[in-house]
């Protein structure tokens, strides 16, 4: 494309005005969530059919259908939000579309049966902002979620996108950008919590001293089970990641950037590729960014999905075509990273936040969150953090909240608490190598440092909520099992140590725990944590250490009493039908895979312990709570 077609900084406002004016001509815009969760519930079909129906009805000039990125409230998808009034439809199917069209768009009356009913209060909410899930959130990285079409660069520009880049390039002072990022106090959202500005400063210094052109890298190798913040950010707003990288590249003097994204994120990958293509055609990427003379471009590197490749040195080894194994970090990537050049790596969420910091200023960002980071980014945790809320929780979904919010607020106010009348037991933060935090710590104000002190970590922001039917020894065993598979095997403590942990935990879960096991676990965790080559190994012990710290009695019960209070560890439990509540309905007989249950209609059923394989199906199907675990 000829450079005459490229957009200059001064043109951004014009594009925004044009797009906003075109939006203003519609009576309403129907924002269909097309994040991965909703897409898996057929939201692409909903988006397309809705647009078709509107066209067929001849009202396409009045109503616009927009496929957006993840709305966040994944538990109730597929979601349609009718803007500007903000009517929130949930669990929408193809069959509901005519009704929305006729009753709401034409008739002006929202479809009540598709509105959200708060399970706690029973109140039906028409508008999205009335729903408590959204109430306590503060959106920075996810500021455009549900509002823009991620596959349309104009939508991003209409929301002020690339203006921060324009401002930075116009000022032309890379050092000032770095100062701003330091002053904002932003710490790496990938889990390490290292102040991003200080990392940039070191990278710029190393590049200057050696006369090398540095690289910037975006880590989109989110590998924690149950965590999908980074994927959602890219699916929702890929341009904010690119704009963040552009600003970083300018500050560092980089000319090339790389996004390392796992191949099993197909939707994010497609949106990212489109975004890069569009940014190039507008001249936001390329030899003359925004007509400033600054040159920068981004390429995508697809990872094959090894958890360890989220570790920055392993990631760079993988990018270089070598086996994805970490190296010692005594010499940091900011000095010798990709291709031995100074390399600044940040994760998706960090890059996505940068444009807002540059736009609204360091002190605004620093005022959000905990601690006073004005003089020292280590002194607190500023800004917001995205979390994915999963597990035994009512409102599964993606949230962005200010640092310093309590676990209680996230889990009970935003997350709607524990479903099925069960009670809260623990929350696992920070992915598989995070720790389990008990109910006694629910009022913990979460930030990088408080989570570490509690024996867990921020990680990339996964929150797995567990109810009282969760066995904490089993949880530790589960995560260690995952990590045994994902350890690269290079260093001895992680390779041999995690395997040993797994064997001991399995033994305890089988009821074969021995006196001294807990001490050995502690001893072993101490060495694995202190001597592992990379952070995967160093933090892998957190699930064991934290459960030992907060739920030690469960270990002891397993070992001494051969008892699993949560009723999870099969070798330690027996299923029994309690005579009183059993109505003799026969419901549990048929699904039992081993025909272990006998009984006649209206007579108390009996489980044959010999035949029972403790699969728990009977307990699930029984509507009278007659099956108990002992």
């Amino acid at each position, binding site marked *: 494309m000829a450079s005459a077609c490229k957009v200059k900084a001064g043109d951004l406002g014009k594009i925004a005005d044009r797009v906003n004016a075109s939006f203003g001509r519609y009576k309403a815009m129907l924002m269909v969530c097309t994040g991965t969760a909703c897409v898996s519930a057929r939201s692409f079909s909903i988006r397309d059919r809705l647009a078709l129906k509107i066209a067929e009805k001849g009202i396409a000039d009045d109503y616009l259908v927009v496929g957006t990125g993840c709305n966040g409230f994944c538990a109730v998808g597929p979601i349609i939000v009718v803007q500007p009034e903000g009517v929130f439809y949930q669990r929408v199917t193809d069959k509901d579309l005519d009704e929305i069209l006729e009753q709401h768009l034409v008739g002006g009356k929202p479809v009540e049966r598709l509105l959200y009913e708060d399970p706690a209060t029973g109140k039906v909410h028409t508008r999205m902002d009335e729903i408590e899930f959204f109430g306590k959130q503060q959106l920075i990285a996810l500021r455009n979620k549900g509002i823009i079409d991620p596959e349309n660069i104009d939508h991003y520009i209409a929301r002020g996108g690339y203006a921060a880049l324009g401002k930075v390039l116009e000022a032309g002072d890379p050092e000032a950008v770095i100062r701003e990022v330091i002053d904002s106090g932003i710490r790496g959202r990938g889990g390490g919590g290292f102040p991003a500005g200080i990392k940039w400063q070191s990278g710029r210094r190393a590049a200057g001293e050696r006369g090398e052109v540095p690289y910037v890298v975006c880590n989109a190798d989110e590998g924690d089970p149950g965590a999908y913040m980074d994927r959602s950010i890219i699916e929702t707003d890929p341009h904010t990641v690119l704009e963040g990288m552009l600003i970083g590249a300018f500050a560092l003097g980089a000319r090339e950037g790389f996004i390392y994204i796992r191949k099993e994120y197909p939707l994010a990958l497609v949106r990212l590729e489109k975004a890069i293509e569009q940014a190039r055609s507008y001249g936001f990427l390329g030899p003359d960014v925004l007509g400033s003379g600054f040159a920068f471009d981004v390429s995508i590197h697809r990872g094959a999905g090894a958890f360890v490749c989220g570790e920055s040195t392993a990631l760079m080894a993988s990018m270089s075509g070598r086996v994805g194994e970490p190296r010692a970090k005594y010499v940091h990537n900011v000095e010798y990273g990709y291709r031995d050049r100074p390399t600044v790596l940040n994760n998706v969420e960090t890059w996505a936040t940068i444009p807002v910091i540059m736009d609204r200023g360091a002190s605004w960002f620093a005022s959000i969150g905990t601690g006073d980071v004005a003089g020292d980014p280590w002194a607190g945790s500023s800004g917001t953090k995205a979390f994915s809320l999963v597990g035994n929780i009512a409102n599964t979904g993606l949230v962005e909240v200010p640092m310093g919010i309590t676990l209680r607020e996230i889990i009970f106010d935003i997350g709607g608490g524990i479903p099925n009348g069960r009670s809260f037991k623990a929350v696992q933060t920070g992915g598989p190598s995070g720790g389990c935090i008990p109910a006694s710590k629910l009022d913990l104000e979460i930030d990088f440092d408080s989570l570490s002190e509690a024996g867990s970590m921020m990680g990339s922001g996964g929150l797995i909520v567990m109810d009282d039917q969760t066995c904490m020894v089993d949880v530790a065993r589960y995560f260690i099992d995952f990590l045994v598979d994902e350890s690269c095997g*290079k260093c001895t*403590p992680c390779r*041999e140590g995690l395997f040993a942990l797994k064997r001991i935990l399995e033994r305890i879960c089988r009821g074969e725990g021995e006196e001294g096991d807990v001490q050995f676990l502690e001893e072993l965790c101490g060495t694995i944590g202190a001597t592992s*080559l990379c952070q995967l190994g160093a933090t892998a012990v957190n699930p064991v250490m934290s459960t030992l710290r907060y739920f030690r009695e469960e270990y002891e019960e397993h070992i001494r009493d051969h008892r699993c209070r949560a009723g999870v560890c099969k070798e330690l439990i027996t299923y029994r039908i309690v005579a009183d509540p059993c109505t003799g309905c026969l419901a549990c007989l048929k699904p039992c895979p081993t025909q272990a249950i006998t009984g006649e209609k209206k007579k108390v059923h009996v489980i044959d312990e010999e035949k029972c394989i403790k699969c728990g199906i009977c307990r699930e199907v029984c509507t009278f709570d007659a099956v108990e675990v002992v």
Partner: protein
Amino acid sequence: MADRMEITVNGKTVGVQKDSYLLAAVTDAGFEVPTLCHHKDLTPGGSCRLCLCEVEDGGRKKLVTACNYPVRGPVTVRTDTAEIAQHRKILAEMYLGRWPGVPVVQMIARECGVTTSRFASEITDDAPNACILCGHCVRACDEFMIERVLEFAGRGIKRHLTMPFGEVDHHCVTCSSCAYVCPTGAIEIVDDKNRPLDAKAIRDHGMKVNAEMATLDSKQCRMREVGTANIVDVMDAYDLLPVHNYKFGKHPEAKKLYSTTLKAEYFTQGAADACWRGCSMACAKAVDGFTLKTGPYKGQQVLVDGPEYETAAGAANMGCFDGDFCVEFNFYCDTYGIDTISAATAIAFAMEVFEAGVITTKETGGIELRFGAADEALTLLHQMADGEGFGVDVGQGIRWMKEKWGKDGEHAAFLQDIGMEVKGLEFSEYVTKESLAQQGGYGFAIKGPQHDEAWLIFMDMVNKQIPTFEDKAEALHYFPLFRTWFGLMGLCKIVWNDVVPADNAVQEEAHKIPGHVRNYWKFFEGLTGIELDEQKMLDQSARVYNLQRILCRMLGFGTRKDDMVPYRAAGPVTREEYESRADRYDGQLADVVGVDPAGKSTEEKMKILRDFREGQYEKLADAVYRRRGWTEDGVPKVETLAALGIDLPELVEVIKADQ
């Protein structure tokens, strides 16, 4: 030095080089730390974690692995705190649990105070030669051989050693480095197909070479990185790079032919490209996808093997400081089967003759053959190959051109002085004016002035290892014999001196690189069972060398007059040459010859210098012939042949008249 600093290890102060690994400092300080993955000749693995040390840096204490922790500040180190001992115990226990039968594991476990393990499991392997995943073999394959045939596969406890796809990879050069560095015997050589007499002796010395390539080459000649082209940079720096038919030794534009430029702009094959697959030096380089601008293949993309030093220096000799030219010249010489050295030296000679006005465009067929005329030089090369035009003259070599253009007598002396050939062969690309030893190296070489017999310029001028007249004469005895011996055995001589042992400088007779000479003897001994020492080696070689000289004599060469070098090789022929290095030459007149240069004209000074230098060369000839057991005229004496046991009647017959 600014890069040195002091650190404290267990309370003891040690000096260390900045950025060197902590393990060396710990060892230097006299402390030992256990390790199961470190190997002295390989980059640190950092995987066993046993060499754990506590480093206190600015008040903050942390645990690091000594093998790969670079010392960058004045840190305080503890190698054996209670915490470290506890971690080492657990780590050793892990090893002992998984591989209880392996002797090195048992030994390390004992050192760490461990005799039993709580880590025994279903994956315990009690074989004494189990693989303990130290990674020595993987690194040796990569660093010794640049092959990367071995790698670990499988994550976590499934980690195992393999070749790609679990098959025997045909890229494996069967060098056996992996087996050599394996601490447990997990890799075994099942069949040594060459059946040498003593494979171990050969391997012990071959692996020394591999290790030096891996650890020293990048700090010395960078043969793996740029090949012999590294010499361009050095020769230019030492005023020894031939420029304009050997008039000068350096040029401001020579950087365009430096190895750094060639590497950055031309060499495309960073990987190993060796004469034979097992070579750990792999000094050959190549330029892929080069588009030719001239000749029969004009416009085609080709692969060019090179350029090596002599080709790049030949370009400088013609004054063509142009990488594209150098690569194209290289390609067509190879394609036509023309030696790049002879071609470049002959063209450089023709250029000087043209510039001096001895010949004109009338003789050259219209070619303006000035120094730096790259296009014209290529035209001439194509003509030489086609047997057309001026190429017919130049293609027949300098001796032929000298005779043709010197016939009238007017220019004969000048052409003789600047015609860089001996015995009809063109000089290779070194300026020898200031190195009497290299003048002799060229002049006395049996088949003419190539550096294959005695490449003394580095030891004479760069390393200054043979300062006296006697040293040079001895070198001209020893090195031709030593290098002839290489040739007789079919062994590469580049691994002898392009990388030298780290401690070579402190060895007696360092210029001979005794550590490496021993490698060759041991190799011979391992193959044949015959023990070798310096005298035996020289005797083996001297028989052939004397035979060669007699053959030379049979062909009409091989006497003193045939060993004389053109004066350009020994000193400044022209006023321009003298004056360009006036300080050096004036200084030598005063200090060495003992003549005060003040008030003398350049011509007078040139005459005095020439007489002196030619006299030196004659004296060198006397000494060399004496040392070789030859007559004053440079012919082997019958008694020399007798001493060597080759006084065969047919040989004696050839040299009888010269005695």
